[in-house]
Structure formats: structure tokens, C-alpha cells
């Protein structure tokens, strides 16, 4: 770090280490260290790749949730939305396959992104134009999306066409330079999310709307616009997660993405983003998603605690994280 930049602006501040911001990453490191000690299989490259890949969905959706929560809202519908978007995408791909062949996957993914964005827009408009509490509004759409996928699948499953399985497979099982493709996609999403939230005017306005909506309004920020956009970003993230998810099981079912909203919110909150809004922490959310998945993995690997208790342990984690956050502050 010897090369001086040609920066004539104010000298960089002597940045103190902010423990509250480092918390999620320290916790993640801690969990990994513990994992290594408990089980020698934990730190194998296969297992690590497996864990990181599995956490990709929650991480991608958590990036969107960081925007929504940062802007002062909440989205409970992401799990159901994920199932609904998955269902629509598979139906679209199956319909297009006879005429387009493997290209149906690309078009289907495009359809998924549009549907995801529209679902987000719907949530956003109900919250901002309808002026309904985000909790209630997305509780409503959560039920709607879940019912729609159940109805579409007739209570069973919507499998993807056999002809598409092989060409679609690499999106989940493939890799680039040894890195699983879902992980690459997650990285791209996270980098874009971090850029938008930290380096653009929209990100600034998002944090302002969540920090104090009145101040934002009095400063000429369109709070409704910012929040609606945050929901649309959330919808897009759900769609991206759905695109990665389909090849994994090859079908959409009424239980797809069930309770993911809780995992996503947990990841965001243990990542250091305040649930009441304000500053969002994208990388923290990713760390949160990884912590949840690593713990689940450890429980499966170690036999010390029944894996049926995974959700209970995750529940304990979120409470501990909040307590730690308070004491560090």
C-alpha cells in the first residue's frame, strides 16, 4: 500500500475498526473454526463447495432483502414468490421447448425476471400507493403466491421438460475455473448490489428513506419511489435465485422456498442491517446466509444434534446475534 493515489481530497480518516460491522464476519470465521475442529470432513473442498452453493439462494434473495429492509420495509413473500416464479418459468420453458429447443431456457429465464420484477412491483405498490404496512401487505401476497403455485401444480409438482434437463443442468451443477456457477452468480449479484447500495444516489436515498422517511421527504426524496424500486430489486433477486434453483430439483412444488423468508430475514439481520431500516449491509447479509448454511451443514455432519433441530439452532443464532449486537454497541 505504498503507491499514493492522485487524490487531493480530504485525507482519509484513520478508520477505527468498527466491531459492530465486523461482527458477522467474525462469527462466520468462528463457526468455520469450530466446524473444522468438530469434523475433519468439514474443510474439504467438496463440502465447502457444497455449503456455499446451497447458501447461494438465500444469499441472492438476501441481497434484495437488504435493499427492502434498508429502505424501511419488509418482505415476507419472498419464499412463496420464489415458488411462484419457479412455477411460471418452468411452464414457460416447457411451452417454448418444442419450438425453440434449449433456447427456451434463456427465454424462460427472461420471463422469470419479468415476473419477479412484477411481483416485486406489486408488493411495492401495495405498500407505497396503498399505504399498507409492509408486514401486512407482504403477508397477504405471501399467501397469494403460495396458493397460486399450489393451484398451478394441482397440489403436486411442475416438472421441467426432460429435453431441457441436460442443457439446464450446468447452471446449478457447473463451474467456472472450479467455482460452482451459483456461487459465481451470487458474487455478481452481491457486487452489483453493493455498488448500487453504496455507490449510487439510489442507494443513498434508500438508506435515507429507511433512516428517517420524514427527513427524506422534506429533502425532496420520493420515498414511495425508492421503496417501490427496492421491492422490484427484491423481485429480481428472487427471480435470479429461481433461475439457479430449477436445475437443482427440476421441478416446482407447493413447498418450494417454504419458510425461506425467515432464513432471508435472519441472514440480513444477523448481517448487521437494522430491521427498522437505515444503513444496509450487503456483505453482512451474505455472511449471515453463510453462517446459517454452515451451521445446518455441521449439524448434518456431526450427529451431535439431530438435524431436525436445525431451525431451532438458527433461531438461537438470530437471538444471540442481536444480543451480541446490543452489547458491542
Amino acid at each position, binding site marked *: 500500500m505504498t503507491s499514493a493515489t492522485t487524490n487531493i*481530497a*480530504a485525507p482519509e480518516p484513520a478508520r477505527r475498526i468498527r466491531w459492530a460491522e465486523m461482527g458477522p464476519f467474525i462469527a462466520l470465521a468462528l463457526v468455520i473454526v469450530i466446524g473444522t475442529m468438530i469434523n475433519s470432513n468439514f474443510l474439504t473442498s467438496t463440502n465447502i463447495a457444497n455449503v456455499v452453493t446451497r447458501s447461494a439462494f438465500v444469499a441472492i434473495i438476501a441481497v434484495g432483502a437488504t435493499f427492502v429492509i434498508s429502505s424501511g420495509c419488509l418482505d415476507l413473500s419472498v419464499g412463496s414468490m420464489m415458488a411462484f416464479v419457479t412455477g411460471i418459468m418452468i411452464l414457460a420453458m416447457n411451452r417454448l421447448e418444442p419450438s425453440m429447443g434449449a433456447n427456451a431456457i434463456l427465454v424462460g429465464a427472461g420471463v422469470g425476471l419479468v415476473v419477479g420484477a412484477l411481483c416485486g412491483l406489486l408488493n411495492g405498490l401495495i405498500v407505497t400507493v396503498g399505504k399498507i404496512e409492509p408486514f401486512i401487505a407482504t403477508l397477504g401476497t405471501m399467501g397469494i403466491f403460495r396458493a397460486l403455485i399450489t393451484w398451478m401444480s394441482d397440489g403436486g409438482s411442475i416438472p421441467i421438460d426432460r429435453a431441457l434437463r441436460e442443457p439446464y443442468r450446468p447452471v446449478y451443477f457447473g463451474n467456472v475455473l472450479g467455482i460452482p456457477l451459483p456461487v459465481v452468480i451470487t458474487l455478481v449479484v452481491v457486487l452489483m448490489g453493493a455498488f448500487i447500495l453504496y455507490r449510487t*444516489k439510489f442507494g443513498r436515498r434508500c438508506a435515507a428513506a429507511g433512516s428517517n422517511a420524514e*427527513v427524506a421527504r422534506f*429533502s425532496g426524496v420520493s420515498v414511495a419511489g425508492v421503496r417501490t424500486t427496492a421491492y422490484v430489486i427484491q423481485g429480481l433477486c428472487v427471480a435470479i435465485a429461481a433461475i439457479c434453483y430449477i436445475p437443482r430439483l427440476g421441478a416446482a412444488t407447493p413447498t418450494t422456498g417454504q419458510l425461506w423468508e425467515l432464513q432471508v430475514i435472519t441472514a440480513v439481520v444477523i448481517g448487521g442491517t437494522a430491521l427498522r431500516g437505515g444503513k444496509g449491509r450487503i456483505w453482512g447479509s451474505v455472511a449471515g446466509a453463510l453462517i446459517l448454511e454452515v451451521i445446518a451443514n455441521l449439524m448434518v455432519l456431526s450427529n451431535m444434534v439431530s438435524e431436525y433441530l436445525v431451525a431451532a439452532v438458527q433461531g438461537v443464532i438470530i437471538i444471540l446475534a442481536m444480543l451480541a449486537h446490543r452489547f458491542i454497541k
Partner: protein
Amino acid sequence: MSLASRPPGGASALKAEGLAKAYGPITVLSDVTLDILSGEVHAIIGENGAGKSTLMKLLSGHVRPSAGHLSMAGQPADFPDAVAAEAAGVVLVHQEILLAPDLTVAENLFLGRELSRGPMTDDRAMNRRTAEVLAQVGAQCRPRDRVGALPLAQRQLVQIARALLEPRRVVIFDEPTAVLANDEVEALLSVVRGLRERGVAVLYISHRLDEVEALADRVTVLRDGQMIGTWPAHGLTQRRMAELMVGRELDRLYPPKRPPALSEPLLIVEGLSVDRGAVEASLSVRPGEVLGIGGMIGSGRTELFEGLMGLRPAHVARVTLAGREIAQRTVKGWQTAGLVYLTEDRKGKGLLLDEPLATNLTLQALESVHPGVKLDRGAEGQLLQRAVAEYDIRVRSLHLDAGQLSGGNQQKLLLAKVMLTDPAVVIIDEPTRGIDIGNKSQIYDFIDRLVRAGKAVIVISSELPELVGLSDRVLAMRGGRIAAELTGANITEENVVYAATSGKGQVRPVTQTRGGDPNDKRDDQYRGT
């Protein structure tokens, strides 16, 4: 240190000796020795950061001293916490409203100390007792009113009522009138006088020196954490008090008035009505002019301008800025046209207290500060440095959050923030509420510079001396209507109050005579121009 020659009250109620407070290496208050007597009103004055709040918190048990000790009526007293202090009869009435908005007035008063009859709360007894205390403090609200629905001033009185629910020996008021209009201030002052008559020792902290002059028996001055001294209030003028606070001779508080503005009006508003606010209000302001807006709280002043800004539902017949009709009445639309509004509520609506200074500074002017896709943090940092220098914002570091600044510095940051949009018309609602006299004078100078540079400024203020001292023209509002226009020598505190309280549309004839009230020394200044 000069001591009071005339001890006004009775025996010592609360005595502090060598009281000091340090946080780590930083001493915020050192060696305060103070004797508060029963039946006296003892004012504590000082600039922001002088240590007033710390002293109050030490005396009321909210903070423990690092050195020194307290005694009550000759007996050593030690308050481990505020509850212990209250049990001993010492209570602090906080400046911030600390009430549960969804509970009723009576429920708030008895919160944590409910009266009960058997297992049930005794609502009737609590409501009855609440009504008594409310009457005592001159509040108009009723015990069953929901606190959240009350105007700010009533909430303040409820808060005082809560402190006075039980008999007290020492009552400490922390700027109780900061949010009150003039008639409400009067009511509060009589509450304080009532306490004094009943032999209560009252410690009174205020920025309003006129109140201190009207109320106090003795005055203690703090400056930079040091106790400067205690004086009998009798014979202590406001100017002298201000000089003691600032530690230098104050030549003037208000800038001299400017020559009358003669150019065409910059902003013309015709027939503006705001829901539950203003009725058919029309006004205009010229470049190079300070237009003052007076009136009691609740007269619709803030509502009028929030309506104009599109921040409240409003209807307007016609509004033009620099000759052009304004169609889009939103904060953003106005900003583009060249008009900004500074809210009176700098903590609730003005600044993001948890965000850094730079974020706050550029929030309103994001588009012009950051023309590209990416935020230009270098430019932002330079703007902040420039703003800190230009507006004399005193900060330890440029990387603080806005909430860590004192009130005066927050107000300057808010000014810097809206000025970044380069407006032609600036509306400032309560430019100096709750800030000390040094910062006040700087803000007045700043407003003067703005109008001298050809901008138009509208100042909404509850402080009459400020309104009179700054304005070239004053509109007095009453009941949502503009009751009178005062110009030239007719701009006096008496005329503003008269128009704001008794106006039935037309009040005392508004003339352009140069006579005016001979008691108002500002007339001379005005005639000189």
C-alpha cells in the same frame, strides 16, 4: 464570584459543592458550587456545551458526579439514580417529550405508579387527580385525551404535570419553553411562579433570556464547563447575561436593517389553502427582503409553508416564482425552480441523525453533487470541508454522525444542506430554536448576507425579538389567515402580538408612518436607512 446580596427565598433546598463530571480524560463540568434556596427561581444560563445539561443531570441523579457532593437541607445527599432523586423530592422536567403517544394523559401521568383499588386500576381517581394537576399547570387538555393527538405545547405541559404529580422540593426545568408559543410561555411562567410561592426551589434552564429576566431571582452562568458565577437577577440586563455567557462584549445581535427592497416580487403566492392549516393566504416576497411570519403556535404558519411545498395537502390559486408559474409543487419541483424550505423540526424532519455529515449535507442536492452514476465521494468530502468552514460548523471530526453535533451546529448543517441547491428564495422555519446566542448571531448574519446577495428570505419565528430584529416586513397569522401586514416602524413586538391575538382580519391600521413606538430602539436603526 459575586454572591447574591438578597437571598430571595428561605433555607437551602439543594446544595452542590465542588461538583464535577469527567468522561474519561474529557472534563465536561468542573467545580460547581451552587446553593438553591427554597422559594427561589434559580436560572442557569450558558451557551450550548457550557455544561448546563450535565449539571442538571448531576443534580437530578441521572448522572453520577466524578467529584464533589450534594446536600439537601444540610444533610448529605447521594442519588444513585433518578428514582432516588425523585424520592428525595428532586425532579427533572426533560426538554424532550418523553410520553407514550398512544396512552391517555392520565395514563401517562401515572405510568409506573398507577393507583389501584384491589386488583383493578382506579381510573376514576387517577383521572380526577390528573385533572387537578392539569389545572395547576394551566393545560387545556383533558385526562382522557390521547397524548399523541395533542399539540406539542400541550404535551409539554403534560410532561410538566407528570413531574408535579407528587409534592417536590426541587424542580429542574430544562428549556421548558423551547416548543411553546408566547401565550403558552406566559402560562408556563405562572406555573413556575406558583411553585416558587409554594416554597419549591426551581432550577430553570433556558435560552430565552427575556424569560430569565422576567422570572429568575438569581442567575448562575456557565461557560465551557466552568462556573462563571451567580448573580442576583435584579439589575442584570439581557445584554449583560449574554455577555457573561459568551465571555465577550456583544456589540449587536441583529444585523442592521437593509435599504428597502424595491424590485418586483420574486415569489408570489395567491389564495393558498392548506387542510387544517391556512385559509386563502396570499403573500409575496422581493429579492433583498426578509419577510417575517409571526403568530402563535397553531396559527398555521408551518402548515402554510409545508402546504406550499407540497408536503401537506393544499390548494393554491396561483403561485409564481421569478415570473414563472409553478405547476409542480413538490420539494423537488420547488428546488429546481429555486426555492427551499428549512423545517422547524431539525431532528425529526431535517437531518438523518444516524448518518454521517457528508450524507446529510448532500441529500437534497444529490443530483447536482453527483452528476454521474457513481457517487463522487471526493467532491462530497470537499463540499463538506467547505461547508464546515463557511458556516462555521464546529466539529471534532468530519466523520461524525449528524446526531453527534450540538443543536446550533445541526442548524448550520441544515442551512448548508439546503443552500447547496443554490436557491433564490429560502424559507426558514424557526431559524434559531433551541440554539445558543453565539450561534444565533451567526445565523442572523448569514440571513443578512443572503438577502444582501439579492436572495429573498422568509423567516417564520415564535421569538418576537428575532422576528422584529430580522424582518423588513412582517405578516402576522391568526387562525390560519394572514391577519395583518406590518412594515417599517410598525414592526414592533407589541404590534405583532396584537395582530396575532386579536385580529379580526383587519387590526390596528397598518400605515407607512415613520413614527412608531418610541420605546423600540430598533426604530432609530430603521430610520437611519
